[in-house]
């Protein structure tokens, strides 16, 4: 697909926008539709578009499989870790109130970090699925 000029130029213009929009959706989940899963999918879609236009080799260079696999695990650990931190600080599992001095701030921090974990895992999973499917020889 690299040979087609228009998709290449459009992709180069839009991919940064897609990734930025993904970050916006991620952090805007508190106040509107959004959150980890949606942001992760959009982020992954940006990478997948890159892979479609510029080839699987380049995608593997930008998002090495070892790194994406590690991120899948890291995202889950972040989510579970927030719960463990809550338990260490005295509350129940995933009790965000105890994460900061003010329960309100604690809730914000808790949701933010948890959704970040979800977003990381989902983006990594989407990229991994694409690379795995596309990489199989016919």
């Amino acid at each position, binding site marked *: 697909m690299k040979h087609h000029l228009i998709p290449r130029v459009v992709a180069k213009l839009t991919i940064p926008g897609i990734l930025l929009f993904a970050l916006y959706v991620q952090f805007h989940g508190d106040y509107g539709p959004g959150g980890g899963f949606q942001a992760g999918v959009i982020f992954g879609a940006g990478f997948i578009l890159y892979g479609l236009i510029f080839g699987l080799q380049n995608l593997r260079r930008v998002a090495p499989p070892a790194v994406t696999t590690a991120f899948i695990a890291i995202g889950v650990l972040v989510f579970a870790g927030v719960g463990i931190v809550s*338990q260490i600080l005295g509350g*129940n599992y*995933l009790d965000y109130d105890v994460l900061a001095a003010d329960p309100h701030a604690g809730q914000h921090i808790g949701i933010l970090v948890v959704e970040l974990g979800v977003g990381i895992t989902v983006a990594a999973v989407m990229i991994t699925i694409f690379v795995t499917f596309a990489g199989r020889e016919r």
Partner: protein
Amino acid sequence: MISQLPALQVVIPLIGAPLCIILRRGALPWLVALLASWVALAMAATLLSQVGDGEVISYAVGGWLAPLGIEYRIDVLNAYMMLLVAGTSSIVLPFAYKSVAKEIPEEKHYLFYSGFLLMLTGLLGMAITGDAFNVFVFIEISSLSSYAMIAMGRDRRALSAAFTYLVMGTVGATFFLIGVGLIYAVTGTLNMADLADRLPPIYESRTVLAAFAFISVGILLKLALFPLHLWLPNAYTYAPSVVTAFLAATATKVALYLLLRFGYTVFGADFVFDIVPSSQVLLALALVGVVVASTVAIFQNDVKRLLAYSSVAQVGYIVLGISYANVTGLTASIVHIFNHAATKGALFLAMGCIAYAAGACRLESFAGLGKRMPMTMAAFVIGGLSLIGVPLTAGFVSKWYLVLGALEKGWWPVAVVILATSLLAAVYVWRVVEVAYFRDPPAEGPVLSDPPFALLAPTWILTGACVYFGIETSLSVGFAEQAALFLMGGS
């Protein structure tokens, strides 16, 4: 620490899964899985000791109190199930070290153990939660990981078996979701204890009846009651040995727990047995299932498939006990959940030993194994005796209570069917025993011998459990009776 145990019970295996992915070298994934499983077992035992006297532990996840928040609610039945699941995984994982090394390519080992821990998380979560939608989430966690694990089998038929299981399992889980949605729409709550309070005034409404129908069909598909059992034979036959042993001992049992939980705690015995004719329907399906599955098992040439059909029959026995709607029948079912897990676990681990040594599980390869692999075949024979229900084995205890329960209700034809199908079980166990002990081993071909100690020890632990719980029944029947009284009394 003790007060945080309910959450940690599910979280420790859950954290173990990504750890297996990060630490992918060598034996580390197996070690992480083993440790997570043993810690989970210790926690389950602690929880069981705390609820053994009719107490109920309630844990609010996220600090949000029930009925608004998700509640983990542990009583004697849950704790029993969690002990069963964690115990099975703790015994199967030492077996897995060598078995997986032989059956699965090395670059996939870390994925195997990660998937195994996710299955464990899902099953423990299904048992512990007190929120109806949370059950759906954990059902899907355990189901998705089991589809992936089954697909890791060597034979290419494992792939189509996993696909069929995926399609049927997802339909079942979606039906369950529809049912949960309907009762949420009509009561406004998802917490099981709260539902139990809010449902009685609206028992007669069509929504609640439809919801019960959807939820029970979804759960019955997961526990492979005839005629919703079609996914089970292929899935158990072609999956890796460790996966079959673990699934056979736990997956259908936890689904049975869900049936009991939704039947007795959420909907209530009045609804389930008086307003809806569950007793008759379950009785009919269970009896037909036991007879048909036992008969089909006799004609199988692959021993794993034979044992899979036998599992369908045994699940039929458990549902039969539930259909009695009396304390003896319920005790029989709960005790058979435990006994069958021990029996089938032992049998499938023995099959794993044979697969390790011989590579195949067809009936022909069993020729002469009685002499070549005496320890393995002895374990198989004892497991087979427990399937039939010979006295001094665990199977006998369950069948005893089943027959007692039937006679209590005056249903002596049912008692006759139970005894007749035990004879059918004797036929298919004898088929294997006859080939193994009374036929000469083939002249050419590799010389087989007993597998290493690491494989035999877990097999014999479970086989020993079959015998131990056939003789010393105070623990298994004691807890089962407590759970039965709690369910029937508390509803």
